[in-house]
């Protein structure tokens, strides 16, 4: 960038000024890289240390005698509230919640986006705007009514259980959370697909219609085969959001065996009974972070694109 200055000055001090410039830039970039990496680094090394080493050693030092015992303890033995069976059960709770919630909300989003771009009707903009606004509301403003409704559904499920022996999933915390995440994720998934299909040539759809293809045939044979990129983006976005959710999880599945991973992790870390095992806490935090981190590492490009799509519309 020093090439911008006048040619005379460039001749006399160009090389050294440029070099200094580069050193400053790289120095700053490296410094910030350290800032972003530090917490993860500390978390990672701490999770491989013994408690002895943590109390007597330096936070930034590498483990002297690395041990993976804290990871096993976090997974299978550590206490969450009063039960001491590790976080594995809660990890599976999260998986059982995330997979259906992501699939359902993504598929519905694809269908909505398809309708809102290729089968327009009067008022389609208003419908979209209303769904879009739903993405941005603070969930505190729907938290309590949803809790009331889920409570009634739970009671209904319990009476069904008494009457028929089945509760049909009514009142089941995982089912509740799947439902909540689908409902409040629809705005985003619809937004993603709507923007993507907006750029998709409408002539193809029209041509297929003329040929007599039905609504679902066009969706299955024309739209879906060309939607891979946006599916990846939406699935990653939804996966990250739902896996990381804490508010809904703590409000609707905040105690007992039904907690998702984030709530369980918060309980592990904030348990005040006995000696605080920092290495186990850090291992538990790493386990909670791994699924989204792996997604990020494997498909970071799509991850960023998803976040951007959520920010920059149209």
């Amino acid at each position, binding site marked *: 960038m020093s090439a911008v200055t006048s040619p005379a000055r460039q001749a006399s001090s160009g090389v050294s000024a440029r070099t200094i410039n580069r050193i400053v830039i790289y120095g700053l970039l490296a410094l910030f890289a350290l800032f972003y990496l530090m917490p993860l680094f500390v978390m990672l090394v701490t999770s491989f240390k013994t408690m002895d080493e943590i109390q007597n050693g330096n936070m930034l030092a590498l483990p002297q005698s690395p041990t993976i015992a804290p990871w096993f303890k976090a997974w299978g033995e550590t206490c969450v509230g009063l039960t001491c069976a590790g976080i594995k059960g809660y990890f599976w709770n999260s998986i059982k919640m995330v997979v259906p919630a992501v699939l359902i909300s993504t598929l519905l989003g694809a269908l909505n986006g398809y309708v809102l771009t290729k089968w327009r009707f009067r008022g389609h903009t208003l419908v979209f705007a209303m*769904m879009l606004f739903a993405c941005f509301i603070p969930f505190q403003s729907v938290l309590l009514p949803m809790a009331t409704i889920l409570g009634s559904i739970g009671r209904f499920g319990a009476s069904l259980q008494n009457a028929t022996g089945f509760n049909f999933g009514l009142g089941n915390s995982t089912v509740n959370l799947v439902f909540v995440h689908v409902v409040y994720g629809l705005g985003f998934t619809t937004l993603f697909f709507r923007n993507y299909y907006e750029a998709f040539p409408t002539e193809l759809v029209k041509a297929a219609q003329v040929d007599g293809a039905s609504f*679902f045939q066009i969706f299955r044979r024309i739209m879906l085969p060309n939607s891979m990129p946006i599916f990846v983006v939406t699935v990653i976005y939804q996966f990250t959001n739902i896996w990381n959710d804490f508010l809904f999880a703590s409000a609707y599945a905040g105690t007992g065996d039904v907690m998702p991973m984030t709530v369980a992790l918060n309980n592990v870390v904030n348990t005040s009974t006995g000696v605080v095992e920092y290495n186990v806490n850090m291992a538990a935090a790493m386990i909670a972070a791994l699924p*989204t981190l792996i997604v990020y590492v494997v498909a970071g490009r799509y991850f960023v694109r998803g976040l951007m799509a959520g920010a920059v519309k149209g």
Partner: protein
Amino acid sequence: MSTVAETQIKLTPEHDARPGATVRSRLQDLLPKIVLAPSFAATIIFVYGFILWTIYLSFTNSKTFPSYDITGARAYQRLWRWTFESDPPSSWYTSITNMGIFGFLYILICLALGLFLAILLDQKIRGEGVLRPIYLYPMALSFIVTGVAWKWFLDPGLGLEQTLHQWGWTSFHFDWIKNKDFVIYTVVIAGVWQASGFIMAMFLAGLRGIDGEIMKAAQIDGATTFQLYRRIVIPLLRPVFLSAFIVLAHLAIKSYDLVVALTSGGPGGSAWLPSNFMYEFTFKRNEMAVGSASAVIMLMTLTAIIVPYLYSELREKPR
């Protein structure tokens, strides 16, 4: 797009000839709306209906359980009174003051740092492919994990302070996370750590979208690098600033988990944000009406920011 052309479409020419044709074709016409209906209905009921429900509850005197007798704006009157109760601070006063501090610093620092890093990264850097993901990965983590990591890092007895003491800087003192006057700033630090990389990515995308010819022309005219960025590049990035602001404002008002995980609310609730206030009053302190009223205020604040933005975004391209 070639796959589209190759895609075979089964023709169904027979459907006009049959007697049930009109019913079927009418059904076909309605099908798009039928497909969209459940999602739209869910939005109407579970978003707008529930918002109305919350507004209704805020005008009752609901305590532990919802009550449906309208008793007037008492909850709002209490919040209003608490707004000015600064000594000793009411939890509402603390929450909204914290919101102001946190919102302002979080948005400002994220924007500044994001832009700064994006400009640095845009100087034809070797290793950009390595640095970018390092700046960005915190966005993939849950606020709970971020909170756990920073809680450890900022703990005076375990983290940074202890480390610097061991390295010989024994006078170093950093206990913000345990200090009721400063705990909110630790939330800012962790929040900035998490979101600034993403803002950087937004600005970087914006920078890459700027026409190189404009830059070249300015350079030929003898503009210094600083002038180039101040007078040409940054004004061109205005739409990115707007989007980034919206994202950050929205994240800031919704922040709840970070305060819980990082500070457990801080000493005496000193790190609360309105979202924590709402949760605590609704579910723990049995003041449902007050909790609902605070949720309504949060919603109105966000609406004031989002609706004009969405309106302009959806109007810009008339279709």
